[in-house]
């Protein structure tokens, strides 16, 4: 064996070895949801909610800041309908303009337009983008936390979509029973807020019976910086009324009362460091205990301070519904809080989970939901693999009959192709999907095309009277660019498929791309090497079996 052949053999064996390392043992190969069964969700983060939340926060901070600077009369409210688009400041005397400019100047990310009454602050596009991205990242993290705590094996959670506001959650092996519960857990933002019940609402714990009643009381217009929030009927209320508790949750949620609550949020879910369910020893009801971080604890002590001095109620708001109204006798420092409300055991567990995994800035919308039974996948694998093997087998037999010994050359190239493909897929940690199996079979069919091109060309050159060595030489040289051109065009469509598709289609695209690259290598390098090696061992041979 010459040095050149030796090195080529070494390179080939090395590549095969490396590739084999990536996919052996075969248990490393991961199956997609369509083959294994499980649940797939595609969620969209409602990022406009994050923008609104930021506007509300800004309005609150602005009000505080203006108060500090002696502009207590200035009113700050959200501007725009139906969706707020900015913060409007009104009632600033003309001689205080400079103060207003200074205060608004400290809020980065806003464009401020001053006018006679005050100013209008609007979020800059770059700032909005930042907020949206942040909401997306936060949602991704939170979903990861929630799913991990739920205890599903090998969950797959990835961000997708052009703006990064899509989240794909794939949970293998999750069945019907959990699907609904996981869906609920994922879709609710878990936004817990502690606010004060407005001084203007005289109803106390009882609240207004309906929204309409409350609106009539306030003459159709909710006072500024407050909003009306509902309080759902609790299990305890039902029990007291002698109704059947068990039906709760099946019937539509009923609101027992409406309360006027200040929009300012004193403590929010982001400040919660730990939360868990506990059982109240006297009432035997489920409660949620949570601990606040330092900032949260400070805010909470301010809140309880105001509430106890002014004799006002604290409203605990979860996902824009009042969980509980609490009275408070004294300022509570320390940041350890217990919320008792109307929770079933499971509710309390899920709520605690939501609180612990942080509050989302925006809710989720389900774009896609798929659940797949594992039996369907097993059938698909069986028929898919059978079809692929049949196709592959036909090609092998056909090549041997048609090209005789050169057919064997093609088969060696195909085998190396197969090994390289599996190795590349293994190294990407790619997932095998049903269309992926089809892609596998197809690329093998296309890979053999390159060999056919070469063999046909060699036959042609032999017929034109070239020697065996010369025919092989020109055959490969002439066909080289044809093969490159045809592979590149196929690569274009495979790559586009990758960009365009999700899930199973992506699996298809990956196998195709990998197959095209592998085929380029094997047809040009391996097949050539085999011919050269044979020529080396039988120099001056007059016939070639092709």
């Amino acid at each position, binding site marked *: 064996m010459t040095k050149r052949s030796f090195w080529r053999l070494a390179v080939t064996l090395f590549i095969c070895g490396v590739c084999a390392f990536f996919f052996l043992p075969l248990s490393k190969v991961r199956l997609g949801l*369509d083959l294994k*069964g499980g649940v797939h969700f*595609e969620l969209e983060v409602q990022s406009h909610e994050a923008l609104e939340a930021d506007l509300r926060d800004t309005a609150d901070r602005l009000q505080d800041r203006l108060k500090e600077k002696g502009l207590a009369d200035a009113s700050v409210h959200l501007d725009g309908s139906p969706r707020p688009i900015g913060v409007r400041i009104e009632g600033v005397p003309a001689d205080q303009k400079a103060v207003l400019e200074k205060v608004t100047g400290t809020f980065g990310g806003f464009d401020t337009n001053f006018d006679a009454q005050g100013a209008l602050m609007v979020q800059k596009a770059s700032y909005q983008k930042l907020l949206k991205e942040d909401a997306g990242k936060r949602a991704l993290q939170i979903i990861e936390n929630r799913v991990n705590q739920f205890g599903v094996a090998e969950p797959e959670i990835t961000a997708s979509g052009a703006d990064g506001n899509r989240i794909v959650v794939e949970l293998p*092996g999750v*069945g*019907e*029973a959990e699907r609904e519960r996981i869906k609920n857990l994922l879709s609710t933002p878990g936004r817990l807020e502690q606010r004060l019940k407005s001084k203007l609402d005289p109803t106390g714990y009882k609240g207004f019976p309906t929204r309409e009643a409350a609106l009539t009381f306030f003459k159709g217009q909710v006072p500024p910086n407050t909003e009306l929030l509902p309080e759902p009927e609790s299990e305890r209320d039902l029990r007291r009324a002698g109704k059947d508790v068990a039906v709760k949750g099946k019937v539509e949620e009923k609101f027992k009362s409406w309360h006027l609550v200040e929009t300012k949020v004193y403590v929010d879910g982001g400040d919660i460091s730990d939360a868990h369910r506990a059982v109240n020893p006297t009432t035997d009801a489920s409660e949620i205990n949570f601990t606040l971080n330092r900032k949260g604890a400070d805010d909470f002590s301010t809140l309880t301070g105001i509430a106890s001095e002014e004799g006002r109620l604290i409203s605990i708001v979860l996902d824009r519904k009042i969980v509980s109204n609490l009275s408070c006798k004294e300022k509570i420092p320390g940041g350890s809080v217990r919320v008792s409300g109307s929770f079933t055991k499971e509710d309390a567990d899920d709520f605690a989970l939501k609180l612990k995994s942080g509050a989302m800035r925006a809710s989720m*919308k*389900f*774009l*896609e*939901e*798929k*659940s797949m*039974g*594992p*039996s*369907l996948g097993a*059938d*698909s694998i*069986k*028929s*898919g693999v059978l*079809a*692929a093997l049949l*196709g592959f087998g*036909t*090609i092998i037999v*056909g090549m041997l009959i*048609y090209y005789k010994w050169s057919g064997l050359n093609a088969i060696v190239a195909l085998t190396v192709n197969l090994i390289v493909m599996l190795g590349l897929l293994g190294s990407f940690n790619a997932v095998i999907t*049903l*269309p992926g199996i*089809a892609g596998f*079979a*197809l690329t093998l*069919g*296309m890979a*053999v*095309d390159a060999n*056919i*091109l070469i063999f*046909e060309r060699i036959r042609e050159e032999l017929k034109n009277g070239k020697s065996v060595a010369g025919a092989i030489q020109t055959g490969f040289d*002439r066909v080289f*660019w*044809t093969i490159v*051109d*045809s592979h590149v*065009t*196929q690569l*274009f*469509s*495979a790559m*586009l*498929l990758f*960009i*365009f*598709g999700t899930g199973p*289609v992506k699996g*298809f*695209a990956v196998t195709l791309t990998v197959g095209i690259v592998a085929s380029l290598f094997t047809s040009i390098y391996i097949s050539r090497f085999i011919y050269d090696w044979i020529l080396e061992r039988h120099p001056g041979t007059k016939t070639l079996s092709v």
Partner: protein
Amino acid sequence: MRIFDNLPHIDFMKYKARALSISWGIILICLVAAQPWKGSESHVKLGMQFTGGIDMQVRFKGDVQQDTVRAALGKGGLADAAVVSYGAPTGFRDYSIKVKARKGQDEKDSTAQINKIRNILRALDHTTSGDPRLDLNTESALALTDQWMKSNPLNIQGDETALRIAYEPLVKKIVDARDKSALLTSYSQLPSDLPKVLADLVQKNYRLGGLAFQKQESFSPSISGEWTRKTLTAVAWALGAIMIYVMLRFTWSFAVGGIVSLIHDILMAVGLFTLFGFEYSVPVVASFLILIGYSMADTIVVFDRIRENSHKPEYRRTTISQLVNDSINQTLSRTILTSLSVLFVAICLFVWGGPALRDLSFPLVIGVITGTYSSIYIASPVVVYWEKWFPRQDSLKQKHA
């Protein structure tokens, strides 16, 4: 062995006008038959990914008739549900149920609708009606593990981890046995090496229901338009990228010929796919993209030979028709062979690949055939016409590989 013992001399270009009109005629007929301009009334079947809606596949034990399912859904206010029967193993009935989303429907409606359909279907399963026990056939592995870790029928000592280690493999065995046919029909199908206590407990506490939800997909209408847009963009990009590449590597006339033949192949595959009543789904669109790549690769083989021959002295004085004709004849055997190899695979996938791969491989079967044909009869004539209509000096011979 070879297809042609001597180089064939078929005058392909003689029939180019006829071929062009026949194949575009077929496309026109498909278009007229499919009536895509009629919107939702047309014969184009779009999958739920494109329209938004619910797509379910269920398996019943026993003889639940298609009409029964349809009637029950109709009674529940879902008269527009499409119920299709699938081939199922003996003793079972498989149905696919599709409900299109209504306009303005949001996710809450779709959840409610899914639950409604599930309840209607459950009511059709009379095999264990009135039995209050849990259904072993619908309980998930996670749920079963949870239940047994709580009741601990094997009296395992130790903490939660110990319990999990003990019960998880047993549950997996049962679930694997169930997954063989989606539904357990008798307790004797439980794995035989299950501990006796557990086997008895399963028989005592669980019933074997006659309904399995094998697949359930729901797509929000808000992203359905997005899929259509994405699809068209992807196809447009693929065509554009290929055109530019061919232009750089060959000349204008080849790029135009290649693109016209690609459009022809796509339209032909789309037309026949629609005509035969197949349903468009995202994997199907993916296979159309593959078709684009394949068809172009096939065309390039012919183009390459035309270019190569155009440099040869013997073609200096011949007509462009002669040059193209000879090139096609010289590459004919390899064109046929390469197409056959891929065609075999595509046909195997179509015939034996199961229902999911059947939809996906149909465009490929059509695409390989038309891709081969169009290399000869669409791409090459366009090159000939283009060179005749826009003659440039030596335009075919300027670029060298």
